[in-house]
């Protein structure tokens, strides 16, 4: 049952058809939840005792940083599937996720910088957390660059798959950087071992924002992937039929 479903999802035309159905739902839920989270966090959550209203940028900064890293892990997972099972759709997913991941990482760097100026007193400092995140950003750009230099898309997918698995080593470094070294960036507020050092009326909207960001990523990924499918399968009959014989 699951195997059959996986094989179906792995087929570009079937994925395309299926995604047409879920797209409106994805769109509504992403906008709704992201909207609620951001409104709640930016307007209604209490101000911080030390930072005042400046801290509110974390409702964008934290989810973007988390997404930047999760999308990379997602890409490495796709890469894994792509190399071992050679499923065409996994390569397309990998390629479609990269520009979204790099955007979120950039957003995390920019919002962090904007927050850093008034709170720390500097836009940028070469501490371990900031530097490792910048390296992640460069790995993303390398993946995108590598894909576009290889004309054969299947080969490009495979090369990027392997590079994404190599790059995976940066993720634990980013995560643990604030514990391993002395950094200007503060240690994690949320840990598995202890209760969060943030009051509930501040982290509840953050959680909603995070879910909203994940849904937004799913929406962007689906849209990107649909375009990628159409482009790569443009000579196939089902695409020609779908587009009414144009092109």
């Amino acid at each position, binding site marked *: 049952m699951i195997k059959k479903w996986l094989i179906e999802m792995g087929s570009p035309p079937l994925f395309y058809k299926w995604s047409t159905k879920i797209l409106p739902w994805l769109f509504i839920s992403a906008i709704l939840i992201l909207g609620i989270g951001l409104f709640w966090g930016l307007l209604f959550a*209490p*101000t*911080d*005792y*030390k*930072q005042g209203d*400046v*801290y509110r940028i*974390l409702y964008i900064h934290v989810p973007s940083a988390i997404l930047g890293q999760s999308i990379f892990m997602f890409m490495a997972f796709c890469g*894994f599937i792509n*190399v*071992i*099972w050679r499923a065409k759709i996994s390569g397309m997913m990998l390629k479609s996720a990269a520009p979204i991941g790099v955007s979120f990482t950039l957003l995390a760097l920019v919002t962090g910088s904007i927050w850093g100026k*008034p*709170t*720390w*007193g*500097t836009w940028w*400092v*070469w*501490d*371990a957390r900031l530097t490792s995140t910048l390296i992640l950003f460069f790995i993303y750009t390398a993946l995108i660059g590598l894909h576009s230099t290889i004309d054969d898309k299947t080969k490009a997918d495979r090369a990027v798959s*392997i590079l994404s*698995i*190599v*790059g*995976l*080593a*940066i993720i634990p*470094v980013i995560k643990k950087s604030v514990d*391993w*070294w*002395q*950094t*200007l960036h*503060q*240690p*994690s*507020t949320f840990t598995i071992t202890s209760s969060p*050092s*943030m*009051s509930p*009326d*501040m*982290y509840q909207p953050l959680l909603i924002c995070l879910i909203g960001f994940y849904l937004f990523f799913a929406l962007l990924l689906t849209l990107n992937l649909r375009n990628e499918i159409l482009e790569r399968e443009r000579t196939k009959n089902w695409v020609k039929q779908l587009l009414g014989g144009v092109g």
Partner: protein
Amino acid sequence: MNPIRKQRLYALVAILIGSLLATWLVISALSENMNLFYSPTEIKVAELNEDTLIRAGGMVKTGSIIKDTNSLNVVFTVTDYQNDLEINYEGILPDLFAENAGVVVRGNLNTDGSFKAIEVLAKHDENYMPPEVAKLMQEDS
């Protein structure tokens, strides 16, 4: 899993382990230099040259901030709860600079063992709460 796939899986796992190992080697080679700042104790032990530009960090000692009324000069003490370091600074302090809060300063040591800072950065901690909660917690303690 058929043999070819299994082979690919092993190759990928080998790549991942290799990459992790390489990263670990780089990190352990850089380890000391990965720290953004030195603590007062480390500075005391190191016996640094006076014109070496370094970053020092720690907590601002309670009651140690002395602001000059006519200029932007400020003197304060940074501590790691073992050793203290006196900091001289002339300039605008960041908003989060306060007693008993983390701070990172860049500059060099003076001949008398105090520190001449050319940049002061405030370090934020991982705690977030509304002002009312902070007030309650202060009353409790």
